């Protein structure tokens, strides 16, 4: 294979880029997915007082700042030996679940649903949120906008701000919830549950009601038998805010379950010569390249993986939906990448119910919102389930609490190897020798990518449903570009 030398610095923008190489026979030889940008957070956090990291690291991502805020908060708790109070933890978890519900909403309705509702081969000008609203009616659009606006209002009530929240402190949060605020939080949580059920109804009608889409979801082209990772509570149920990390093998059997503090024993990060983004794999299995199966350390995270890695959901409506999901899709584990969209809606329902449960707890308005630091321990690891996968924040400090080392594994990074594999498999299945490489066809390739809801240094989200992405098809031996499709509004 011709050596692929790519200098992303010369590329136009710092966003996701897919390169598909075809050989002399017109068959897909390889696919590369690149991240051409570096911002340097892990380095510039070093030297800062560790408590600032709860407000620096959210700036990694405007889409999921709450995830970084919470992972940082938990790592900082550990650095200060400050165990959160019950109410402090509840308020954090309410904020976090409300955010997870809002984020899943955005992904499903703005990024993913247009493919199914408007159709994968539709004109890109219609294959967006506006086309979606045209299909399902303006009322649905209004509900989505309200879901986003209200969820962010909740985040602002507890977090102080709606984007880049600030309110966690070592051992809890900085501000109690007033009775009036608690009433509003409850009202928003009720709406979230109602909205989640509405979202599942849309999915039933539009996707499950169409056998063509069900076949597409279940087709081998979009499947990989990998390991799956997710945070679980003490009953092995999905939990976004707290718990141990459980990994199941491609047969669905528990491979390992470990405490967040032990993550370095179980995950190794690998660098490839063409991307800024590392490729983590399971140390206990080893790196065998971009392949699936039991002998390959490639694992997946995020909704598909979390449902596979857990034994169920801790809330009743979500548990019922969880059971229907596995019954419909042929039992555990589900390997179909596109099933991630349904898994995401199961989680949306769970997050909303969890917010509702916590908001109804009488202790939610207690003023016992944080504990006091017991000293400086020198190290802290914080793990949460970000919408796009398990998020690890790991800090070390000196005796004064200044950061001396910082390592982050962000949600999407977990899926980096799997994304490349899924793209290659989809491209090989879709691009035929001599066939025309149309926009619609490349969109179907891209659907393999979109299911992961990738968020590369916050690079792949934009308004109105179009990821800023360039797909280039090149001749393998010469590197000549045969076709390029760029996505933007």
């Amino acid at each position, binding site marked *: 294979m011709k050596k692929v030398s790519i*200098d*992303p*610095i010369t590329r*136009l*923008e*710092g*966003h996701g880029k897919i390169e598909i190489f075809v050989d002399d026979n017109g068959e897909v030889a390889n696919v590369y997915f690149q991240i*051409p*940008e*570096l*911002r*340097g957070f*892990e*380095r*510039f956090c*070093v*030297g*800062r*007082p560790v408590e*600032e990291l709860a*407000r*620096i690291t959210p*700036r*990694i991502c*405007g*889409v999921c*700042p709450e995830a970084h805020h919470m992972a940082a908060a938990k790592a900082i708790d550990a650095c200060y030996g400050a165990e959160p109070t019950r109410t402090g933890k509840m308020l954090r978890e309410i904020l976090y679940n409300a955010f997870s519900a809002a984020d899943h909403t955005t992904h499903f309705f703005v990024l993913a649903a247009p493919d199914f509702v408007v159709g994968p081969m539709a004109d890109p000008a219609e294959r967006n949120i506006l086309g979606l609203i045209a299909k399902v009616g303006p009322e649905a659009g209004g509900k989505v*906008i*309200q879901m*986003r*606006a209200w969820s*962010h209002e909740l985040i*602002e009530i507890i*977090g*102080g*701000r*709606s*984007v*880049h929240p*600030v*309110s966690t*402190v070592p051992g809890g949060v*900085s*501000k109690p919830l007033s009775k009036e605020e608690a009433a509003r939080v409850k009202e928003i949580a009720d709406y979230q549950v109602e909205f989640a059920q509405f979202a599942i109804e849309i999915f039933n009608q539009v996707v499950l009601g169409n056998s063509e889409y069900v076949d597409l979801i279940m087709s081998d082209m979009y499947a990989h038998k990998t390991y799956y990772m997710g945070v679980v509570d003490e009953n092995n149920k999905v939990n976004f805010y707290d718990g141990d990390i459980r990994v199941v093998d491609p047969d669905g059997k528990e491979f390992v379950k470990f405490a967040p503090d032990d993550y370095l024993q179980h995950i190794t990060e690998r*660098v490839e*010569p*063409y991307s*800024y983004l590392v490729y983590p794999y399971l140390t206990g299995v080893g790196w065998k390249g971009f392949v699936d199966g039991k002998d390959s350390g490639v694992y997946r995270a995020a909704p598909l993986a979390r449902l596979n890695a857990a034994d169920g959901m801790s809330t009743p409506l979500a548990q019922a939906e969880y059971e229907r999901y596995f019954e419909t899709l042929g039992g555990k584990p589900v390997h179909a990448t596109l099933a991630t969209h349904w898994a995401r809606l199961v989680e949306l329902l769970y997050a909303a119910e969890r917010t509702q449960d916590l908001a109804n707890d009488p202790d939610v308005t207690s003023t016992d919102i944080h504990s006091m630091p017991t000293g400086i321990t020198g190290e802290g690891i914080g793990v949460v389930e970000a919408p796009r996968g398990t998020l690890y924040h790991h800090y070390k400090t000196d005796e004064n609490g200044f950061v001396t080392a910082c390592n982050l594994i962000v949600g999407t990074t977990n899926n980096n190897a799997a994304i490349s594999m899924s793209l290659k498999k989809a491209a090989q299945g879709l691009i035929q020798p001599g066939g025309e490489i149309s926009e619609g066809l490349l969109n179907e390739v891209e659907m393999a990518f979109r299911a992961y809801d990738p968020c590369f*240094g*916050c690079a792949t*989200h*934009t*308004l*109105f449903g*179009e990821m*800023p992405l*360039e797909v280039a098809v090149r001749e393998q031996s010469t590197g000549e570009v045969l076709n390029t499709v*760029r996505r*933007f*509004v």
Partner: protein
Amino acid sequence: MGKPKVAFFDFACCEGCQIEMTNYGAEPFLELLNHVEIVEFREAMTEKTTEPIDIAFIEGSFTRECDRARLEEIRERAAIVIAYGQCATTGGINALKNHQDDYKEYVYGTDSDMPHLDSQKAYGVDAAIKVDYYAYGCPVNKYEVLQIVLHLLHGKEPVIPNYPVCVECKRRETVCRFLEGDHCMGMVARAGCTAPCPAAGIPCEACRGFVDDPNIPALEKVLVEQAGFTPQRAHEKGRMFTANALEATS
């Protein structure tokens, strides 16, 4: 005359400012669309790049020399350029790397000599092109952005605050962080955010940058005397969102 054409572009950033703009709720958002036409969102340089724009919003830092040409092209097409968000106005949090030169080795270890893993210092976009208006903040205050657009639609000069966050804390009767035994940057930080952080019990980090002509020595003195900081920490405190401004004053 048709509706003014508005376009959005982004460079090195987290896109939180775009997200903030989606949180208006239905009414203001749809109403705004009655008055402006959003013609482009990002990556617009790849196709029809010659169409003139009335207002160009630019998000993100200028951190790669290769982005200069793209910025110049936007400037050429746009009657008004608004830098929005702290990355675009001052370099923002990205500028935290500007005083370090080993971040590549730090992030990638022994793999760091791979040629593509390069990056440069981060500045506001006015390091490359002329900017007409600045919408500060990490993220922007969406209502302030709305005000800026409304003023421009009416042919008025937008009013960008040049007073400190302390003013806004007084207005909403927030108890001073220093009286709570904490520290704060509010006395030199540019207002316009309505001071939500001190109201939530968290010190102001000056995410909108400094006011014009901040008294940095006085800030450092207060941080040392009132908050018990070491002189070095007091000096570095301001770096979080204002690294470039700090560089310029020291």
